[in-house]
């Protein structure tokens, strides 16, 4: 299409995404956002101004060629659009759904200055979903007759999957070791079905297998095999993408009462073990009539919305700062509000009160005010005197973050760690203090986003290739 004849769609707002009605969706675990139709996608793609310097690309941690794939969608070349994304992003169906676009690509979109930015995430998702239902995926099994080497990847979350895919495409024989019985890491145990359907994750994992990647489940590296045993056992390099699996608690009285969960436990029971289908599935979960979720991130939103779907009548999100400081994606906060989650902002829990049998009956809180900015640049909340009050709840879910699980680092001598227990790496390559061992994702950064973990997996794959080539 000649540039001069093209008239962009000048609507100030994004083409709305069809969603399940809030009253309906809080009774099921089906996906909330239903995705664009081809017509809607083309209409939205026409909003792109095709800026000369493509500021959106710089906002993407894996530098997807955003204007180019959007142009292909506009031309209805959906398959080609998908392949364009795939050049730099192995998991478009997932990123299109869970990336915080408003703080990445869409943040730099020129359209955002006078209205809403182009819905890059929705278009990415559209391209991936369209191809998944209409055509062949872009993966081709590489020739494994003479692999360039063998690499072990520990963990099958976004970092591990990306690292494995890139290495396989370069011609390496890759084995992924996953601790759970199902691969996918946080994509499977953490993010609920209504936000990221497990069939989407499954599809990406099948694609990976088509690339020749082997996945061994039920393998806790650090216990059944050490990283050193992998290196001694024929692997040329090891990538550790084991995630930040260790839940943080508040360290307030009453935290071991029955009815108090870490978000990790609550979500694992529901997402991985499918407790929402108990007793068809064996794993149960307890959800009271009233639930308080503590925290302001995506995990807190996920937990709150799961609690609603499991029948809670009242769900509070208790967060000690204001809505502006909430780290959750905008869309998740909006969806949670639409579904009836009540936000108790500038509120901090101080004590969980139990009954005689050891079950939660209330959460005692204090009100907060915002003071001076702290190290993170966010204004530090301080307690308002005399503001103690109680929320009557039967369930408390603690979603204040996770730190790297020490299981693998404790079993790997000589690995330098950060003060938070994460693995110390060179950010550009994922190299650790030990030759042949690379790391990336939440085990390096602490709990972060899917796309950042993927970016780290990608950089490490490149560095692993260079390392092995140099060694051989």
């Amino acid at each position, binding site marked *: 299409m000649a540039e001069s004849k093209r008239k962009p769609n000048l609507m100030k707002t994004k083409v709305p995404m069809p969603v399940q009605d809030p009253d309906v969706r809080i009774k099921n675990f089906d996906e909330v956002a239903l995705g664009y139709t081809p017509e809607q996608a083309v209409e939205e793609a026409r909003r792109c101004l095709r800026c000369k310097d493509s500021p959106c690309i710089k906002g993407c941690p894996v530098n997807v060629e955003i204007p180019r794939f959007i142009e292909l969608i506009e031309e209805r070349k959906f398959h080609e659009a998908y392949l364009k994304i795939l050049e730099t992003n192995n998991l478009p169906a997932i990123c299109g759904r869970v990336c915080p676009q408003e703080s990445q690509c869409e943040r730099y979109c020129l359209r955002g200055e006078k209205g809403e930015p182009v819905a890059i995430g929705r278009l990415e998702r559209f391209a991936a979903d369209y191809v998944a239902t209409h055509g062949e995926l872009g993966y081709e099994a590489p020739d494994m007759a003479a692999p360039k080497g063998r690499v072990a990847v520990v963990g099958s979350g976004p970092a591990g999957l990306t690292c494995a895919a890139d290495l396989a495409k370069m011609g390496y024989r890759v084995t992924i070791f996953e*601790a*759970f*019985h199902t691969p996918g890491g946080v994509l499977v*145990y953490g993010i609920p079905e209504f936000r990221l359907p497990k069939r989407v994750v499954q599809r990406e994992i099948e694609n990976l297998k088509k690339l020749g990647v082997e996945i061994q*489940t*039920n*393998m*806790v590296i650090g*216990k*059944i*095999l050490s990283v050193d045993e992998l290196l001694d056992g024929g692997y040329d390099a090891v990538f550790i993408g084991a995630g930040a*699996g*260790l*839940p943080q*608690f508040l*360290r307030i009285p009453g*935290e*071991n009462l*029955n009815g108090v*969960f*870490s978000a*990790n*436990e609550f979500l*694992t*029971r529901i997402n991985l*073990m*499918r407790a929402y289908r*108990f*007793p*068809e*599935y*064996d*794993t*149960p979960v*307890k959800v009271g009539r009233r639930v308080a979720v503590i925290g302001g991130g995506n995990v807190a939103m996920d937990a709150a919305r799961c609690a609603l779907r499991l029948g809670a009548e009242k769900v509070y999100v208790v967060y000690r700062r204001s809505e502006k400081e909430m780290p959750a994606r905008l869309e998740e906060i909006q969806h949670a509000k639409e579904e009836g989650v009540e936000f108790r902002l500038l509120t901090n829990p101080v004590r969980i009160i139990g009954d005689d*049998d*050891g079950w939660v009956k209330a959460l005692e809180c204090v009100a907060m005010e915002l003071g001076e900015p702290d190290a993170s640049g966010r204004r530090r909340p301080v307690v308002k005197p005399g503001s103690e009050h109680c929320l009557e709840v039967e369930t408390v879910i603690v979603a204040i973050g996770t730190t790297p*699980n*020490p*299981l693998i680092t404790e079993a790997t001598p000589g690995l330098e760690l950060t003060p938070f227990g994460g693995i110390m790496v060179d950010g550009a390559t994922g190299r650790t203090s030990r030759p042949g061992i690379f790391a990336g994702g939440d085990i390096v950064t602490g709990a972060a986003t899917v796309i950042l973990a993927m970016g780290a997996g990608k950089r490490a794959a490149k560095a692993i290739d260079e390392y092995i080539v140099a060694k051989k």
Partner: protein
Amino acid sequence: MNRIIRKRVLGPAVKLIEVESPLIAKKVQPGQFVMLRVHEKGERIPMTISDYDRQKGTVTIIFQEVGKTTMLLGRLEEGDSILDLVGPLGKPTDLQGLERVVAIAGGLGVALVFSQIKELHRRNSKVDCIIGARNKDLVLLEEEIEPFCTNLYIVTDDGSRGERGFVTDVLKRLLDEGRRYDRAIAVGPLNMMKVVSDLTRQYGLPTVVSMNPIMVDGTGMCGCCRLTVGGQIKFACVDGPEFDGHLVDFDEVIKRTAMYWEEEKIAVELLQQRL
């Protein structure tokens, strides 16, 4: 993988299975456990490894059928496989430098303490073992454990085998007689471990207990198995499963263990209807 090569019925609803798992068998140390799952919609439950054979590449699990998962596990026969088996998890028991040990095992606890007693014997430690059970049918592994013990005492609630009474009656007598031990190892029902710990505290005898709380992942990820030990939150799966019995808040553990009783009952009833 995870094929059952031997199965024995040890007592009412108590079964032993020996499972092929060469990698776990190669690494396991006494005191460690596995997580297992028996069908595609199944839950993950922890099981202590009772015994292992590194050469054969097998681990042995002894369990009582109390819930749906253990009932389904009990229906597996030789030649069948366990769907998922993960391990070895948890910290191994530190058995170094122990010359004299008293092991107190209640009910199924014998199965759990078996590998430790065997290992202590291999290290030439002297082990007095007290096995307690409700009645003679529930006294497990007596013959198997005997060769590894210096003295073996059996005690039942109804006196149908050994002395009549409770494990603490025998333990108190031994301690009052002037027996000296470097450590007590207590494994069994929570109440038993609690009263044993209360008793040994009075004698200043260091006591290790083995916790078996509800777990989901078994790798430190969910915190479901947390308990208070000496005022600190610990995860049984990665910090334990063994802890200083004098520091464990047993009352809290007992309450937490009851969390899903209602659901466990529902699951068992539905299973029984189906069978």
